[in-house]
């Protein structure tokens, strides 16, 4: 099976405090730790496991700058066979549809049986997989947490739905699936693994190579535009306990007693 996995380099939210930059136009990018989007990493692992069972190749692709090459190499160190970097100034400011348009162009350069994306990435939009499928007229399922191969025409898949339940479907190949975390246990990648793929050539394509009009992607093609970032306010905000640990714990125990938290 030939599998294309779409991945993204994102600030790692488990490693960073994300703050709004002074002018509100962006987040503070200094000193951020970047990694491959967590959902995408599960998708790559799943693709590798499918190829281990059924044969074929895994290709990882990303839209980004030169920095994004490092995550392609990381996923190739995991076991992906090929990497593709889609890089062009014209891609900057793309909305979800713009990214899906770019990915469609590269997906059509080869014949893939299965295209995987992460269920969502840093912007939490959960959109690119479903858009890509619709553009390519392929069947789609989101939030996939189980994949079984039936034959070379069909998969049996599970979708994570509310309440911890799982919705089972049969889906025709080729198709697009967005992958939910927890579907597998992504393998560890050591520094030696990354060194092994350090010199593998990663082809880079721009808008011209993909036959894309600049007006279809980037800011020019975007219907959704970001205006600014700001500090969110969801509720009234917690009363923050401060002082020495001893003082904090004394106060907390008092509160827990009052609220029925201690038996």
């Amino acid at each position, binding site marked *: 099976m030939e599998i294309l996995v779409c991945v993204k380099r994102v600030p790692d*939210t488990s490693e960073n405090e994300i703050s709004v930059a002074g002018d509100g136009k962006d987040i503070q990018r200094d000193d951020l730790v970047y990694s491959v989007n967590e959902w995408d990493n599960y998708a790559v692992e799943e693709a590798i496991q499918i190829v281990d069972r059924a044969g074929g190749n895994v290709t990882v692709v990303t839209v980004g700058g030169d920095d994004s090459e490092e995550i392609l190499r990381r996923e190739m160190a995991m076991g992906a066979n090929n990497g593709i970097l889609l890089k062009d100034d014209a891609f900057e400011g793309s909305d979800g549809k713009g990214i899906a348009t770019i990915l469609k162009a590269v997906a059509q350069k080869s014949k893939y049986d299965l295209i995987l994306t992460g269920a969502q990435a840093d912007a*939490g939009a959960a959109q690119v997989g479903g*858009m890509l499928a*619709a553009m390519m007229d392929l069947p789609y399922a989101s939030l996939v947490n189980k994949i079984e191969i039936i034959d070379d025409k069909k998969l049996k898949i599970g979708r994570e739905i509310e309440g911890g*339940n799982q919705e089972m479907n049969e889906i*025709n190949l080729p198709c697009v699936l967005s992958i939910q975390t927890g579907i597998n*246990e992504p393998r560890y990648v050591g520094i030696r693994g990354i060194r092994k793929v350090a010199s593998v050539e990663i082809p880079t394509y721009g808008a011209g190579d993909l036959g894309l009009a600049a007006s279809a992607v980037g800011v020019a093609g975007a219907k959704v535009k970001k205006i600014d970032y700001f500090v969110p306010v969801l509720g009234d905000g917690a009363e923050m306990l401060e002082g020495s640990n001893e003082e904090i714990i004394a106060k907390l125990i008092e509160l827990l007693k009052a609220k*029925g*938290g201690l038996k």
Partner: protein
Amino acid sequence: MAQIFAYITYKGSVADDSALELLAAAKKIDAAAKINAVVAGSGADLNAVCTAMAASYNEVWKIDNAAMAYPNAEVIRKALVNILPAGSIVLMPHDTFGMDLGPGLSIKMNAGFASDVVGIEGVDANALKLVRQEFGGQVSTHVTCDISGGAVITLRPGSFQADESKSAGGQVVDKSANAGDLTVGRKFLEVVAAEVGDVDITKAEVLVSIGRGIEDVENIGVAQELAEAMGAVVSCSRPIVDAKWMEKSRQVGTSGQTVKPKVYMAMGISGSFQHLGGIKGNPFIVAVNKNPKAPIFQVADVGVVANILEFMPELTEKIKEM
């Protein structure tokens, strides 16, 4: 302004809680507009939902087809593309169904798409100004969505106060005959119910709930000791289950269990909206997290910025000394 439709989901014969939240959101886009609903499904349950929705929506467009007895988003997308007028604005919940349907529908309708919207700040010319969140809720952002060719917008459940006015006096319009060809490449098989675990966290009055901050499976004992001292039960957030450190039955959140404790101790949990969606009944929430930007602090009653691996043992010890 284009016609606004709210896509209503339902279970049994009852509309989802989102049904009237979508109405409130629609009125934030255009306070004067007559808002329509669209409901797809099959049989008596569908009819009951449509009738109920007519109290709140101007027209309720019913799509009845046996192929929609289970809400297969691929089938429903095809019907909607055939039935909804070009240029419509379609609202739906940002849940596991909306995520399945919305992005592809926007492509097929050639419309704008914005997802997981938590606020609507009005329309300027063709630009609908929306509030979203990024980076797991650590920052918010304003975006504009060009609605000149219509739009598909998914709204975060619970973000809009349901419009209970039931003042529309609307009618049900049967659009089933216009659904068209519903052949798709995905077939629904069955729903596999969640496994029942050894402990029922939904019954617990006090929960010590752990997230990524626990760092390692070997540290879970630290939380168990605190829970024992408090007479509480240990629950967790999604990453703990993804890592296979605890059973799925211990997971709090929309994709796990819905809990209604008196006291909820969120230990090293950042507080994604999916996690918060599983906490009901307005418990007293204590949040301990080393990241002062963690969204959990926005909704907790009491917060402590600390490493839970140092904080929990100290708390346990002091409680034991009591």
